[in-house]
């Protein structure tokens, strides 16, 4: 079904005089607007809004929504993004009137329930991290990265140390160097070995008295657990630096190991990846951070504290870096996270990670026979296949495979990331998929690799839009509608 009428732009569908609602004749005397408002407050012309009937608007948005692929409609193995199914129960709980009808300026004694929920969230995240102090304020994972780096900078400033270099392995998420730069630090890449691990020799060579932080992702973006993580954190500490754990891949290790136990000093969580809060579309996100005891004084203000049976916001934190977000963070997202963690409990979270790793290894075992996986026979929660040989032999690229999978009813894996694998296809099934779904995906992926290059180059064939011109869109983006 390609309904091109309703999915045209609202501006293109506009008909002068069309209205969703017709108001009755005005029965109070009208007065000219310039008598009611100062001249500076009156626009020269009314805004050029599209004029449509209510059914036109409803059909427009409902039809657009059916063109989308989502985890509620399709298997979505988008590596690094952990597109697990989010239980609808948590949406319902976070929408309870007691949650959504609060005002952030309410007196604290009237919001004790929410403060308790936030305090318990801090405690649970500290336990899962193995790091004792938590801030719930950051509004997204990358915001958490930047906040943690500001905490690290404040720590070194307090000690009178001039350390401003952040070391980042070359397989890292692009947010790592971006966050470090935003935090006013200088980034230096660390190489990976051919096996996909951090190159310890290169790391050792780059550590010095300017090193502030090593940002490491574990398991890394190849889906491999850094086996020498204890040695890595030890040599960074010996050089006087801190270790930051990019918590994007926490879904692989919950209840099995803890960042604090393997030597990390700071980390962030992505509740939308790990704890069932919405992936975009749900408004702002959350990126809580957890830090070691010696960094706790520098966390953003306020923190929720418990005094006897009461909960309150602690603003008396003289070494804090200050606020990084209005009020207490994105509470609605944190409520979903809290419900998710409580639903599973400690053992349940461990099962989540075990099943995420099991699903990924099952898929890996099925896929590597027809699509090489350069780094290892086993993986954690995701793995990175390479279409480099298909590209050389048959002119079929990772992008062609990704596009064609849409025709087979599957969302594409992440492609061309991490950059250290040629023609990368990064596949993360998550724990919420059945064996039947994994089998169907592996079979579709195999069929795609057997199809002709001509068919693939023009794929997808069944979507409303086939291939946008990515180069033209990047060079000459059209960002607003013009008549």
């Amino acid at each position: 079904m390609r309904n091109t009428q309703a999915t045209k732009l609202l501006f293109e569908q506009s008909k002068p005089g069309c209205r969703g609602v017709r108001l009755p004749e005005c029965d109070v005397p009208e007065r000219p607007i310039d008598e009611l408002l100062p001249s500076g407050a009156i626009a020269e012309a009314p805004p050029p809004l599209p004029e449509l009937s209510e059914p036109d608007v409803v059909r427009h948005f409902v039809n657009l929504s059916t063109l989308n692929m989502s985890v509620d409609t399709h298997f979505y193995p988008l590596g690094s993004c952990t597109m697990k199914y989010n239980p609808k129960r948590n949406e319902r709980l976070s929408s309870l009137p007691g949650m959504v009808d609060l005002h952030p300026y309410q007196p604290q004694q009237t919001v004790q329930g929410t403060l308790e929920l936030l305090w318990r969230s801090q405690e649970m995240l500290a336990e899962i991290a193995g790091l004792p102090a938590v801030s719930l304020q950051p509004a997204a994972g990358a915001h958490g990265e930047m906040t943690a780096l500001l905490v690290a900078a404040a720590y070194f400033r307090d000690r009178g140390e001039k350390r401003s270099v952040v070391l980042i392995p070359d397989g890292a998420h692009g947010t790592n160097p971006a966050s470090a730069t935003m935090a006013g630090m200088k980034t230096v890449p660390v190489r990976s070995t051919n096996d996909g691990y951090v190159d310890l020799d290169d790391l050792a060579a780059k550590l010095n008295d300017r090193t502030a932080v090593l940002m490491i992702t574990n398991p890394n973006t190849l889906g491999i657990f850094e086996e020498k993580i204890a040695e890595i954190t030890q040599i960074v500490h010996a050089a006087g630096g801190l270790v930051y754990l990019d918590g994007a891949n926490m879904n692989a290790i919950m209840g099995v190991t803890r960042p604090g136990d393997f030597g990390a000093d700071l980390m962030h969580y992505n509740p939308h990846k790990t704890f069932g809060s919405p992936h975009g579309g749900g408004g702002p996100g959350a990126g809580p951070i957890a830090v070691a005891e010696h960094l706790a004084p520098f966390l953003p203000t306020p923190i929720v504290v418990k005094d006897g049976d009461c909960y309150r916001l602690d603003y008396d934190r003289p070494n804090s870096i200050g606020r990084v977000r209005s009020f207490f963070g994105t509470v609605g997202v944190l409520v979903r996270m809290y419900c998710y963690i409580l639903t599973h409990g400690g053992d349940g979270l461990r099962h989540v990670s075990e099943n995420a790793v099991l699903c990924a290894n099952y898929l890996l075992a099925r896929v590597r026979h027809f699509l090489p996986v350069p780094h290892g026979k086993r993986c954690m929660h995701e793995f990175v296949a390479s279409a480099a040989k298909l590209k050389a032999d048959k002119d079929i690229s990772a992008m062609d495979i990704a596009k064609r999978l849409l025709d087979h009813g599957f969302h594409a894996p992440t492609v061309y990331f991490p950059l250290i694998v040629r023609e990368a296809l990064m596949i993360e099934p998550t724990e919420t998929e059945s064996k039947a779904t994994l089998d169907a995906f592996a079979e579709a992926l195999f069929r795609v690799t057997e199809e002709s290059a001509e068919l693939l180059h023009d794929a997808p064939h069944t979507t409303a839009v086939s291939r946008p011109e990515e180069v033209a869109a990047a060079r000459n983006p059209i960002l607003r509608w013009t008549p």
Partner: protein
Amino acid sequence: MTPEQLLYTKSHEWAYVQDDPSGAKIATVGLSAFALELLTDLVYVDLPEVGRRVSAGEPLGEIESVKAVSDLYSPVDGEVVEVNTALADNLAGLADDPYDAGWFVKIRIADESLLAGLLDYAAYQKQCAEEEH
């Protein structure tokens, strides 16, 4: 220029070194055909201003493709004396001519001894072959 005449960095920049009339050594710098193929379709390049001081191994600009943004690293220490301003409008043609029209900047070399740290064509070919594996 032919690829065999050039020196290379491990990060895939090439340098062609010649004397200018005053006797100063000038390095013309670009990006290898191997790297350009990996980057695929280019959308944007950010090059330094004339007069900017650059250091070997430090970023001197950025190149963006539909896949990723990558730093361009200077192969030498020195000062930028000329920038290929025509490049930005001709990125689609860069991969077809990476060694002539595709140069990025010319740098007056401050320390010739650092040239010894660059790879010759054979060593660079070997590195590319290893990355292919």
